[in-house]
């Protein structure tokens, strides 16, 4: 039986690329409406995890159920229930803001007045009104993130995956972006976000700390920091990174 309060559940989720194990035996349970942060140094397996949960990569082993859909069995169905923003700006720079949104609304199957209504709603939610006729390629980093989020929200997905959404975005825009994320979670959207910024990690209800493909700590920011032996999250993060590097050196 699937608990309706649980939106994401993974069991022994593993992904190998040749000899390299990118994600190893990951067990996670994320509740509906939760803002969950995935933290870890580069190459720790955050992006691979998110890609598996979105159906972009097939797991080598294990299972994952997202919004009631088995990712391995129905990688197509899952795509109707999630929104996804990659690290890299994934929209069309040679289309305007309005054209990008119209395209994604259409691709998510919205038609006629329903499409127009939903676009208007998202536009006002993210404050894109004055940018509609601007080419996406000419937007600043912060506005690109907003447009990316707008396109990923068109179909009102119950689960939202954000892979380093604020990389290269100025602090003011980052704060605005997080206000939006919190508002979405309050409306019941589950948000899974990867980040490098410690202040952002602090805004998550729970975080999972990853290292070399393992989930090594899970809980609130303080709990995680304590678990690794740092006085705060940033401290914990650095301890972890140094330990990884030492291990890498020992191997080679």
């Amino acid at each position, binding site marked *: 039986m699937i608990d309706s309060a649980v939106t994401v559940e993974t069991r022994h989720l593993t992904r190998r690329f040749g000899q390299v194990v990118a994600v190893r035996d990951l067990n996670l349970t994320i509740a509906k409406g939760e803002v969950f942060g995935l933290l870890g140094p580069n190459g720790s397996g955050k992006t691979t995890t998110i890609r598996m949960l979105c159906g972009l990569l097939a797991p080598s082993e294990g299972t994952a159920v997202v919004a009631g859909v088995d990712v391995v069995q129905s990688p197509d169905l899952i795509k109707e229930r999630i929104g996804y923003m*990659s690290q890299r*700006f994934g929209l069309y720079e040679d*289309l305007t803001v309005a054209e990008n949104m119209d*395209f*994604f609304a259409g691709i998510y199957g919205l038609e006629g007045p329903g499409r127009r209504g939903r676009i208007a709603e998202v536009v006002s939610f993210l404050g894109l009104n004055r940018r509609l006729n601007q080419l996406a390629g000419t937007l600043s980093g912060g506005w690109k993130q907003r447009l*990316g989020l707008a396109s990923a929200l068109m179909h009102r997905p119950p689960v939202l995956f954000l892979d380093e959404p604020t990389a290269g975005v100025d602090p003011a825009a980052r704060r605005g972006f997080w206000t939006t994320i919190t508002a979405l979670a309050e409306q019941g959207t589950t948000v899974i976000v990867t980040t490098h910024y410690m202040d952002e990690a602090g805004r998550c209800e729970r975080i999972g700390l990853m290292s070399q493909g393992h989930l090594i700590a899970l809980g609130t920011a303080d709990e995680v920091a304590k678990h690794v032996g740092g006085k705060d999250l940033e401290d914990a993060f650095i301890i972890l990174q140094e330990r990884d590097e030492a291990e890498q050196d020992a191997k080679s």
Partner: protein
Amino acid sequence: MKRFGPMFRKEFIQMRRDRLTLGIMTAIPVIQLLLFGFAIQTDVRHIPTVVLDESRTPTSRELVAAFENTGNFRIVANVDGRDALDEWIARGDAQAGIAIPHDFPRDLARGTTATVQIVVDASDPLSSQAALSAAAGVAQMRDLAILSAAAHSTELPLEARVRPRYNPGLRSANYIVPGLVGVILTITMVLVTAMAIVRERERGTLEQLIVTPITKTELMLGKIAPYVGVGLVQMTTVLILGRFVFDVPLTGNVLLLYSIALVFVVASLALGLFVSTLVRTQQQAMQVSFFFVLPNILLSGFMFPRQAMPAVFQWIGALLPLTHFLKVLRGILLKGVGVPELWREMVILLFFATVLIALSVRRFQKTLD
């Protein structure tokens, strides 16, 4: 297929906004047509020729004039010795030499076989062939005139009456221009779509696209659809210019031609799409497309007759959609034939289009592995 519409619209806007590519796609037919139409003439004329006339008689001058009158030879110099003649040809200043010996008029008057030597630079087979057959023609005409004068008869014992049908003037433009429609479509259609998917991959937009519920078929068809219009515009350009600049006839049913062209364009686009699923970068896509263009020009029968090729190359040629489309183009434009004569080509092209789309859809994966 409800997501085909948005995909098509998006591709159309992007195509319209990419002014450079759009400009190249409209300029290519015009430039190619003018290049091929004016520069490439397979009927070789005015071959630069040197004359060594050792006899210097009215008879020999008459013979030289007969050569010049065919239009195939253009006398560029008269030389004094055999060495000089060879030198002209060796330098490349002349491609043919006519050597008339001392005893030519004497032999002719006596009724023994008089010989004239024609030296041809055969390092260029196409023009030497033209020179050789023209020379043989001149000699034959003179022979006939002399023989019939001797026999006091103007009746020939046998005459082959040749009727060059469909292209009575034997104009190479009539052969080249229809073929050019097919070649231009192949080059541009394969190239633009070969870029289609890798471009999205390189720009990072493919990841965002495949995380949506769009199906592979919707994606593929939406990608190629706007270019079908481009292809038909290109074809129209070449046909109109061909008609008014090169006087190429448009004998058959135009509607039939466009219907078959539509299938051919889709097949070419699908081929490009297939290339797009094989390569990782736009540069590779470009290289593979160019690699593909050459056999199309050489083996399809666009310039060189397929009947003259070894069987293996005829088979390879038969695997190219262009080969079959060329038959359709020449059949409809020059011969005015229709479905009864062309149904085989139509079935083959339809087969190519279907199989290539199916293959591309199969190859394309909606994952990042």
